[in-house]
């Protein structure tokens, strides 16, 4: 990208179709440095101050907002006057893109910051090592131990189900499938990524709980999570397998190694770092899933180790249930649980990214 980035104030065509603009822009390069812009910004802040004195507007946030708006207007006007319309629009677009970035990052960073702020107030070792057994609605005690164990079991089972299956599907799509069936599978795997998580939960409820009468359980939760994981695993593995150079496969064939062994012992190991990254991202995503668990794991105040039978709790489920309460002690628990959850997810994410870095190095 550095190649394409133009210099801060590139010269427009010196004598193109716009003689007037060309004249003023020759002035530009030489004379419009930082100072006039800074003056425009200062004028905007001063103007805002004046506006705030004479109108009923008040407040720090409003002041910053209004002066920013005025500064953009003033800057654009100055640029238009001195550099011409095209340069002014260009500057405005740059400002708009930067503003979009700030507008996006503020709430996103705010979510994490506020969770840490509220969660840290309640989080403690005993919160992580106690369940909600015997904790009344107004009691301040209790913790998420049972939820952490439940989430670990459910995500582990979901991974055991969806990772091998997803890998096989990815191998079929990349190595074997060429016809209409392979295209259909690719297409519907893509479509599957868009299934709302609550629908996956409803399906497992309809199939596993209602049709097969298996009841709510950690396994049912794992089934719904694996439906959500499967397309993510397939797609990331597919991408990685595609990146394995054909010459490696050919070298293996030349040694007389059959195709399936080539795939298992050459292609997959080569792609393994990337595949692991994809799996970890998928795990990070389903770890925070709440909606399907409501309909499949159902929840439980006690530590329930058996995933095959009986309602089981999970960390996100617990956060949701505590958050809906009217009592402050429960809401404090919800925030602490949220902080625990976000920590797990972010750690998974960072670990996955660090693997990616190793991956690119290995490939170079």
């Amino acid at each position, binding site marked *: 990208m550095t190649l394409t980035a133009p210099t801060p104030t590139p010269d427009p065509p010196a004598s193109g179709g716009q003689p007037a603009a060309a004249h003023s822009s020759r002035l530009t390069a030489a004379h419009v440095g930082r100072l006039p812009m800074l003056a425009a910004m200062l004028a905007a802040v001063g103007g805002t101050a004046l506006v705030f004195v004479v109108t009923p507007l008040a407040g720090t946030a409003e002041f910053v907002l209004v002066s920013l708006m005025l500064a953009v207007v003033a800057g654009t006007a100055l640029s238009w006057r001195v550099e011409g319309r095209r340069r002014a629009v260009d500057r405005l677009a740059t400002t708009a893109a930067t503003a979009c970035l700030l507008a996006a990052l503020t709430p996103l960073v705010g979510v994490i910051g506020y969770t840490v702020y509220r969660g840290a107030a309640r989080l403690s070792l005993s919160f992580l090592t106690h369940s909600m057994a015997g904790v009344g609605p107004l009691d301040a005690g209790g913790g998420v131990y049972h939820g952490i164990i439940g989430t670990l079991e459910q995500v582990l089972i979901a991974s055991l189900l969806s990772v091998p299956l997803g890998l*096989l599907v990815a191998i079929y799509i990349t190595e074997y499938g060429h016809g209409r069936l392979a295209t259909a599978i690719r297409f519907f795997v893509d479509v599957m990524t868009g299934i709302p998580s609550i629908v996956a939960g409803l399906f497992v409820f309809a199939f596993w709980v209602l049709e097969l009468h298996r009841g709510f359980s950690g396994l049912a939760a794992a089934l719904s999570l694996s439906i959500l994981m499967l397309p993510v695993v397939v797609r990331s593995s597919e991408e990685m397998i595609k990146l394995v150079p*054909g010459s490696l496969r050919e070298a293996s064939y030349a040694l007389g190694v059959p195709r399936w062994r080539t795939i298992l012992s050459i292609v997959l190991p080569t792609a393994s770092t990337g595949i692991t990254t994809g799996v970890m991202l998928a795990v990070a995503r389903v770890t925070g899933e709440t*909606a399907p668990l409501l309909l499949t794991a159902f929840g439980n105040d006690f530590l329930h180790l058996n995933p095959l039978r009986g309602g089981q709790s999970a960390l996100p489920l617990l956060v949701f249930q505590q958050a809906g309460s009217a009592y402050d002690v429960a809401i404090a628990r919800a925030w602490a649980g949220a902080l625990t959850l976000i920590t797990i997810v972010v750690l998974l994410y960072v670990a996955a990214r660090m693997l990616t870095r190793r991956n690119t190095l290995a490939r170079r």
Partner: protein
Amino acid sequence: MTALTSPPREPTSPRRAAVRRGDRVFRGLTLAAGVFTLIVLAAIAIFLIVKALPALRADTKGFLTTREWLPDASPSVFGIAALAFGTLLSSALALVIAVPIAIGVALYTTDYAPRRIATVLGYVTDMLAAVPSVIYGLWGLYFLIPHLVPVQSFLARTFGWIPLFADPDNRTSVASRSIFAAAVVLAVMILPIISAISREVLAQVPTTSREAALALGATRWEMIRTAVLPPSRPGLISAVMLGLGRALGETIAVALVLAASFDVNWRVLTPGGNSIAANIATKFGESGNTGREALIASGLVLFAITLIVNLAARAVIYRSGAMERSAAV
């Protein structure tokens, strides 16, 4: 590539036959896995339909036009009208807020930021897509809604003449669990997804196109407008539609932000509103058999809507061929 990598044909020998068998078995295994995913997808549709039918038969009013949700009462009365309305309105509003910002962020990372900063920004936005929805819901309920009061009362005062922002009973001066608040939370949630896909789409535009535009004397914005955006259009449209799909199906955040109500409320700033997904989450625990089947019926509608949106988005991508499929989605 496929032509190059096919293994050579071999004359038949006992060892070769074993090799062939191994290949056949493994190929069969992968094929079975592929077909199995198709079966799962079909099973989702089939089981939702089968389990929804009893409730739909028990319903004494039109399912698509009724607003109430009392499936366990006798006679059973429930319908999807208010829920579908809330789902569509909140998602549409979320798109209006999120799309310009998301595409702006994507443009910033591909065309404005230095490469190193762009990479970091990419990681940050991708990571924010992984923040669990229950946390967005918590944040929306306990932080955003109280802090949204000045914004919503400003909107009501200034644009109250637009029916959407009307507030005749002056209910926006206190914290309100409104469609608007839900839409803001949804917008924050779908922003990373839309901008991640848009970023990949924009990065597909060859560097040479960009350089050619700059060499002709275009400013950076003119370069974006003439060389970057036009070829990216199909990809950007599908990015927006995939974001829409996410917003439509989002459950937990909406369930936390909105207080369940069953009215068709156009006034987005005033309390009220609900969505199909959120209703499933809030009503499931307290429902009886018919109630749960009714929720499955509403889930079927949600499934159909998101399926259509996703199919359309994928069709745009596949048709244009403008974007290689990426793992970011």
